């Protein structure tokens, strides 16, 4: 399974803080993003950044492995 986390404004639009998605062989970050964005377009329209296991990832072609922690995040507004 892939553990997907959400925070702040994305949680508000989704109504959930996390979900578990089965890990399919060869699934990329882009696939996972598109799959969730198709189900939750209103939440994903504010997603700007992704992180895998706590590290920001810009190249969405990376393959995900079972047990990965993936985060889809809105623009940060701390400080």
């Amino acid at each position, binding site marked *: 399974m892939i553990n997907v*986390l959400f*925070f*702040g*404004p994305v*949680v*508000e639009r989704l109504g959930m803080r996390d979900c578990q998605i089965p890990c399919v062989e060869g699934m990329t970050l882009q696939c996972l993003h598109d799959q969730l964005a198709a189900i939750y377009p209103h939440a994903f329209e*504010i997603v700007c*950044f992704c*992180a895998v296991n*706590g*590290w*920001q990832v810009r190249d969405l072609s990376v393959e995900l492995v079972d047990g990965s922690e993936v*985060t889809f*995040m*809105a*623009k*940060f*507004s*701390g*400080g």
Partner: protein
Amino acid sequence: MKDAVRIQQDDFSQDEEIKALKACSLRMGGIATFVGCARDFSAGRTVSQISFDAYGSMALSEMNQLRLDAIEKYSLLDARIVHRLCTVTAGENIVFIAAGAEHRVAALDACRWMIDELKVRVPIWKKEVTPEGDAWLTSHP
């Protein structure tokens, strides 16, 4: 002594942070700090409270990396970053940045760079509670 980079609920003391910053060297000639506070008014609306959400583990590692990047980029003697995560009302402190260097230009440049970078690199989100309802902030005024 407290860690140089922290995420905490409680308020911080500038005196304590500056003392800790100075402890590393007697060669520090300039210390620049920035404190971000909660305002009672934002984008035309009265704000009664500000609350936060954060991707805690990533936020802390990004803040630690940001401190190291600033020290290297500006040849700082030391730097500190503290971000509060709790519900704050107007006037309360949110974030503290400090940069200590031999001379003032490096300290001032690094302090500004760190707060600018923190806003774009650290996964923390701010929600303003107003009489008209709550609103997550996603811009950087």
